[in-house]
């Protein structure tokens, strides 16, 4: 996807902030692409968006919606 500067980082920050993605406790900071895709799919499903695993326009728009600051428990893996 043609992403603007920083859009990918902003999306990863969103997924981390709201509990869709967990920084590996022991590993290095960089996250595995498959984890990011899984987190994105969890967010899209919880948001009733097409579950593409891609950072498409609808997903980015949804991430800009005003919301509560608490985490979402919608990615079973991180939620555990």
């Amino acid at each position, binding site marked *: 996807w043609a992403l603007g500067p920083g859009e990918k980082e902003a999306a990863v920050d969103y997924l981390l902030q709201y509990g869709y993605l967990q920084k590996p406790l022991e590993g290095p900071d960089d996250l595995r692409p498959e984890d990011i895709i899984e987190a994105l799919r969890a967010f899209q499903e919880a948001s009733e968006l097409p579950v593409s695993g891609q950072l498409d326009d609808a997903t980015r728009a949804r991430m800009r919606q005003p*919301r509560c600051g608490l985490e979402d428990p919608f990615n079973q893996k991180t939620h555990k």
Partner: protein
Amino acid sequence: YLLLGRWRKKHLTFRILNLPSTLPSYTARAALLQAFQYWSNVAPLTFREVKAGWADIRLSFHGRQSPYCSNAFDGPGRVLAHADIPELGSVHFDEDELWTEETYRGVNLRIIAAHELGHALGLGHSRYTQALMAPVYAGYRPHFKLHPDDVAGIQALYGKKSPEIEDEEEETELPTVPQVPTEPSPMPDPCSGEVDAMMLGPRGKTYAFKGNYVWTVTDSGLGPLFQVSALWEGLPGNLDAAVYSPRTQWIHFFKGDKVWRYVNFKMSPGFPKKLNRVEPNLDAALYWPLNKKVFLFKGSGYWQWDELAQTDFSRYPKPTKGLFTGVPDQPSGAMSWRDGRVYFFKGKQYWRLNRQLRVEKGYPRDIAHNWMHCRPQTPDTTPSDGDTTSSATGTTLDTTSLAIDITLNTDRSARDTILDITPSATA
């Protein structure tokens, strides 16, 4: 729903530490109080406000910096608020948001507060995007109510609300003293649209008076009809006017050449008194928050009264139309409402005035349809700006499922507001 924790007790105190600058304070307070009521309506919880000292739940507004919250906010948009789970009790709102009420603009404080209180009571985010506990704000809804998932979640934590297990000390008996001898009169039909008086009372409740009866008007419907004297002992029916002043907490009722004063539902000593400095048989009364004065109306004139000072009435009455542009003579009711506007009522119609006290375009409109939630008898002309009033429209009055939601604070000072709603019962 998701359960994150719960309080070991069900009777909680709360304290409002500060308010947003984008709303009149009594509008913001009413929104926060209503947010508590959504939860106390469906679970055996009570919330008592304290104005000083410690409270279980503490509501406050802060921005990008805060001396007591490590979780800074991010300016307008994005994160609107956050809250701690039980039994911590902090509820914080982003002071940089445009907090509003009764409009699609900005962010509705009442709905967001209800969401954050859901967290403070132990709920996590819901997967239902239309549920109150969904993480993303779904916008202002004029007839907002909890989603079944919200109700199921809170009842999973605290049980269902049921009248028979209401705690004794919370029991609020209706007054047992013999009521004022009132001539038996037929119960009025709110859908007639006609009222003797309208009042924005304590805790932002809207009261309509007709004959010997009074009922509350809310966004989601009408409260049950009560005999006036069942709530305000000693008060007769067929009132001329009613007005509540947030400045003094006094409620004044006018009838004929007498005036009654109450604080909540308790009559003040020495009342009723004789009206001697203004004319008897008034038509209406309202409190105007901008100058904190009470206005009394009769015929085409008004008196402006400072409750706490000796008012010189020698130059009154003055012509009503000189100050309230476009309103009718001999109104049946008048009030300043939660939305910051002034309303006049007469016959079956009402007029809405803007902050310059000038009747807005598209008025008068139909009381029964726009205030009393009755199905329109005739096609209603919505004003050209399309703005409908705050109350629900288009629903027929359903008297079968009304719950009694009168808060009776008989022996508590006005300071402690008990938001315990008496259980539903046959009206």
